[in-house]
């Protein structure tokens, strides 16, 4: 077996196969299930490491499978962008698995949950490694199908309603993406991802069609990326358990949408061609609107997870904004924020889950003095929150810095105002939480306290947020080091803009 063509398949198998086995496990086989989960996550990480090494040394990893006669294939391909996303997914999956095992201890239907959990990660990895638009579409839809059972997992009326709304948005988005892809195939004759963008060579008569296709594709992807006004499903999906929210918001669904937009603008259209079509301007405006709107809505939420959800809506659009501002520095900012937002947001959701599980606290108004009761968790939360606001030297600062520089460099000065305004709003909805948690007096008794003796909460619930918080620190402090997300983003952008 050719190593180069099967390595990517193996990476997918490390979550698919355990997932399929887990479906058939009886509820009581906790140890076996945990082993399968952890083994899959660790092996995946190892294999991803191999791929990173290989890509840096010029190896070509590609798996092809003929789909339709006429040359349309399913392609898995490891280029710099896919490696960025797949590494993020693999690392965060490992951390989330540890967290989820502890969080769901004793709750019903864990085999079903972890089965779909694994399928979800498989789909995400597929989205990351997709080498053309049709492969992307396949895994994008698989992601919808595998996340739906996670949202309705609890079976309550609220969960099912959230699931229905989720489906309405995502299936419709998938349909738009499908039409866009077929039309693109029709007009351009191929849908492969290419660094320079495959479409630049077409003549003028197709430009109207290409613009329409762009709108369709962005609309289809924008549902998952939670671009306004297609974001409605995201706050509702908060009814799911914290590990699900963490995974959905930090890694899988929203990032898949944002990643798709990156792919479409950079690798299908090519950023200069897209600019010449005149579509990047409106996209930037849309992203900016989402940034401000999300932050504004976040200000008025009392439920912690809902506030974080609206914060996600806002933050993911930074990525889109970075891509839409035509210029290498802005692109770096957008790409690196893909990673940074993931790490920071997952920290925040892990902490929110800890507060709910340990003390029964779901609302911000109930978080007074929680820092005294759960100092480690709250410390991690603080780092995540400060990173979101953009305080140096944390990861979020790096992304915003590059976005700002990039905007100035591309002559889009208005973006600075958006960035500044959004940072102010972020501070507006995060700082009060921090203040209340550290400096206000705690209540007499917490709503639903569970005790772990002298520790503030279960070890497996504590370690993941601390780890991701440290990663946030590292990504910011060590941004100049060779393997930081920033350097990787620079590497990708260099390839995109080289003539």
């Amino acid at each position, binding site marked *: 077996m050719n190593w180069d063509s099967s390595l990517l398949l193996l990476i997918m198998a490390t979550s698919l196969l355990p997932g399929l086995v887990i479906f058939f496990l009886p509820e009581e086989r906790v140890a076996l299930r945990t082993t399968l989960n952890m083994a899959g996550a660790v092996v995946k990480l190892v294999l991803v490491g191999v791929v990173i090494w290989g890509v840096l040394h010029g190896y070509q990893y590609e798996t092809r499978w003929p*789909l339709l*006669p*006429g040359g349309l294939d399913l392609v898995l391909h490891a280029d710099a962008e896919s490696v960025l996303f797949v590494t993020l997914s693999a690392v965060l999956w490992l951390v989330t698995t540890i967290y989820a095992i502890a969080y769901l201890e004793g709750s019903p239907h864990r085999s079903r949950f972890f089965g779909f959990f694994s399928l979800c990660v498989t789909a995400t990895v597929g989205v990351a490694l997709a080498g053309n638009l049709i492969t992307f579409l396949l895994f994008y839809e698989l992601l919808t199908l595998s996340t*739906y059972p996670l949202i309705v997992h609890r079976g309550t009326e609220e969960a*099912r309603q959230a*699931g229905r709304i989720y489906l309405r948005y995502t*299936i419709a988005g998938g349909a738009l993406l*499908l*039409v866009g892809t077929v039309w693109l195939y*029709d007009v351009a004759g191929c849908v492969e991802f290419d660094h320079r963008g495959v479409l630049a060579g077409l003549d003028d008569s197709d430009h109207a069609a290409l613009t329409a296709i762009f709108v369709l594709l962005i609309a289809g992807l924008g549902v998952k990326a939670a671009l306004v006004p297609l974001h409605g499903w995201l706050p509702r999906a908060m009814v799911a358990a914290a590990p699900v929210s963490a995974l959905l918001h930090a890694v899988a669904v929203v990032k898949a949408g944002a990643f798709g937009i990156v792919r479409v603008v950079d690798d299908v259209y090519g950023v200069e061609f897209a600019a010449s079509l005149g579509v990047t301007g409106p996209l930037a405006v849309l992203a900016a609107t989402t940034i401000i709107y999300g932050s504004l809505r976040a200000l008025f939420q009392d439920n912690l997870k809902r506030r974080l959800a609206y914060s996600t809506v806002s933050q993911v659009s930074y990525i889109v904004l970075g891509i839409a501002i035509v210029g290498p520095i802005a692109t770096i900012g957008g790409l690196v924020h893909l990673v940074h937002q993931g790490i920071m947001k997952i920290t925040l959701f892990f902490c929110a889950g800890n507060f709910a599980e340990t003390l029964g606290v779901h609302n911000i108004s109930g978080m007074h003095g929680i820092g005294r009761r759960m100092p480690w968790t709250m410390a991690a939360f603080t780092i995540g929150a400060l990173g979101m606001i953009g305080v140096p030297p944390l990861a979020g600062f790096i992304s915003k810095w590059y976005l700002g520089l990039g905007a100035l460099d591309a002559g889009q000065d208005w973006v600075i105002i958006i960035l500044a305004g959004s940072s102010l709003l972020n501070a507006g909805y995060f700082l009060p939480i921090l203040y209340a948690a550290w400096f206000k007096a705690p209540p007499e008794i917490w709503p639903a306290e569970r005790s772990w003796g002298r520790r503030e909460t279960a070890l497996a619930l504590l370690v993941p947020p601390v780890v991701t918080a440290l990663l946030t620190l590292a990504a910011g402090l060590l941004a100049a080091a060779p393997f930081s997300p920033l350097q990787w983003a620079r590497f990708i952008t260099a390839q995109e803009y080289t003539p």
Partner: protein
Amino acid sequence: MLAGLADTPWSVLVILWPLVGALACFLWPRHANPLGLLAALGSVACVATLAWQVVEQGAQRHAVGGWGAPLGIDLYADGLSLLMLVMTAMVGLGISIYSSGYFDRKTAAVFWPLWLFLWTALNALLLSADIFNLYVTLELLGLAAVALVALAGGANALTAAMRYLLVSLLGSLCYLLGVALLYHSFGSVDIAILAQRVEPLPSVWAATGLMSAGLLLKTALFPLHFWLPPAHASAPAPVSAMLSALVVMASFYILLRLWLEIFPLSGAALGQLLGLLGAAAVLWGGIQALRQTRLKLLIAYSTVAQLGYLFLAFPLGTSFAWKGALYLLLSHALAKAAMFMAAGNILRFGGHDRIADLDRVVQRLPLTLTAFSLAGISLMGLPPSGGFIGKWLLLDAALYSGQWWWALILITGGLLTAAYVFKVVGYAFTPAEVSHEARTVPARMEWTALLLALAAVLLGLFALWPLTLLDIGSPLAGGYAG
């Protein structure tokens, strides 16, 4: 030995084997189950060998008994008929295994001869090379199907069967009148000869209209679909599966053959009309499916909608539009059979099929629910599945020819399908309001449903072979534009 295998007229054996099986089951009813399964396996083997023969040697034409046309019967196996035969064999095997666990002894003794006889008629239909033989086999198919619908007894099933019979006979007679006209005009009933001789005469127009009307009635295209939901819903689950998957497919196959070979001069107007009716079927069937409270009726209306998709290929008319429609047909056969089997399992388990009371089926019948979901994925046209490939090809054809409104119908149909599929799946996640006594469902019933649904999904990953098979000797050989 291979040379011996290559020379045997496998097309004859493909018809004979299930027929002998039917007779055997009729003569020895106490051993009906094992005999029936043996017949099913044998039929699959015969079809597989025929497939090998066609792939190696090209399209096969065989004159039964050595007497050629016009008085004798010719059997013709090209890529198109072969693909349908293979699909019939797969679904047929699944239905056979499922039925061996479904029916009690007494009913099984009656079921097996009828089912194998239906299979014989279907194989013969797919291999027929002249339009009169198509009439005969179509009638036989209809009679067997009607008898199977009536198998369950009970007022609902019997009246549905009666209505189905009358409709079936009406359709066949219209078709036969068309045959008469064509024979009178061109002196032959052989399809290949007619294809050469046909000209745009008034009699050909009349024949086109009559034969199409008859076949549309049998394929249940809107608005001639009224007989289908009651018949498919009140029949026992394996019978519903074969009706939705195989029997409606037969009349569509004939229509396709005639359209491609004898009626290409029919012009754009009739094609647009068929497309319009297909669109109406997609929308109306989808909306009606959403409104149902019982699972089997929902699935039956889903069949009405899915059949509508097939007719969207008529106004588009390009080679890959036809291939898309055919691929949808194949996937639908597998997926719909799986769905009806899943419904049968649920019915067996809980004693009812009210959607609102699907009492946490997901926990107790996980295989069945997975089968239903996978089948639903194919029907919705989500990747990876056979339904997605078919949908892609049709979308491509629609956008390529600039007739974008058909693309809109395809998308809307997909959304409606998603709505009713997830309605069922979503209910299955609820806590029960009333708990039922559960009866056990035999493992083979759950597994055949799951395997057929899995096949529908896998059809999406292995599309290359079936699509290139269609090019062997058939009128669909052609390229892929775009």
